[in-house]
């Protein structure tokens, strides 16, 4: 117990005694944000873009992201592609096998609301957020690697706002209501928890 007894005296030596606690928060968040290991799996054509993003030209590794071939070692699930009803329980199982803290990026139109399979399809799950909580939606069909990387950076920034002992903050709901597209079903119903990244909002594509 020596260290606990000695701690207040130790903290007082820093200017501003709160420094140690905010520092732990910062260090933990930085560690989580800069080593997001994603699960090695893809469902459809989005997986091709995911592979391109992982390869040398775009290089996921510079964000600290490398793929792991087992859910036990992953922090991030990138749902890349069309999720069919038959595959959905398997993806849910993979998500359940990941250790906390875990994050989900829904990549491409299919994962947001069925995409091209929204109409006249009996076999596609219209939105992966019906089975797993999604942090970031990346729109596109499929999204370019820049869009996916932008989504990952957005997720990193989301992780940096986390605080110890607080529930995870998922701020997407209000933003989505504001961005609802006329004529389309409301995204809030389909995307209860995530922020949406659209290709037009990506700085590198605008310039």
């Amino acid at each position, binding site marked *: 117990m020596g260290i606990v007894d000695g701690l207040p005296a130790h903290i007082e030596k820093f200017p501003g005694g709160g420094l140690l606690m905010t520092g732990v928060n910062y260090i933990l968040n930085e560690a989580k944000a800069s080593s997001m290991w994603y699960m090695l799996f893809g469902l459809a054509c989005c997986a091709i873009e995911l592979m391109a993003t992982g390869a040398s030209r775009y290089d996921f590794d510079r964000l600290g992201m490398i793929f792991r071939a087992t859910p036990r070692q992953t922090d991030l699930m990138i749902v890349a592609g069309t999720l069919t*009803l*038959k595959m959905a329980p398997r993806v849910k199982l993979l998500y359940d096998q990941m250790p906390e803290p875990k994050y989900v990026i829904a990549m491409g139109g299919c994962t947001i609301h069925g995409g091209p399979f*929204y*109409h*006249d*399809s*009996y*076999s596609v799950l*219209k939105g992966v957020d019906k089975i797993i909580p999604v942090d970031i939606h990346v729109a596109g069909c499929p999204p370019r690697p820049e869009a996916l990387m932008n989504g990952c950076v957005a997720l990193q920034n989301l992780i940096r706002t986390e605080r110890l002992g607080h529930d995870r903050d998922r701020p997407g709901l209000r933003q989505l209501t504001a961005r609802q597209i006329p004529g389309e079903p409301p995204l809030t119903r389909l995307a209860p928890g995530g922020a949406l990244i659209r290709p037009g909002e990506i700085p590198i594509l605008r310039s």
Partner: protein
Amino acid sequence: MALKFPEIRDRIRQVFPSQIVVEDLENSDCLVVPEGLYRRVAEFLKSDEELCFDYLEFQTCTDHPPELLDFVAYFRSIEKGHRIGLKVKLNRQHPALPSLSDLWANADWNEREVFDLFGVVFHDHPDLRRLMMPEDWSGHPLRKDYLHPNVVKRPD
């Protein structure tokens, strides 16, 4: 030496009566056979040395509600280089056929797919389960009158 379609047709008609093995009006390389003869014609296609159909290309169905379900299978001879189709007009209410999975191994999964999506029951199939749809699915999605609550109609 690849045989032309009339030669294959005439070779089959030497063994099976020509009144019931008729040409298909929709496909120029296809013969319509009755349900009861399908298995025997297929056996003949494989075993006959002149025809030598050693490869089953595919098996599928076309749905014509309210009564007809057309089962189609195409065969190819890798050795000779010719091909032919067999069509069977099935009763849409209770479609059933004998399995070919002991003659061509790939008929196993082909027939599972046809069973899954069209509801044709194959007798003597070793393992007739759904292939594409989830195990607990009900109904046969490629039927024209198939309805599912998950389907959102495309606006006109």
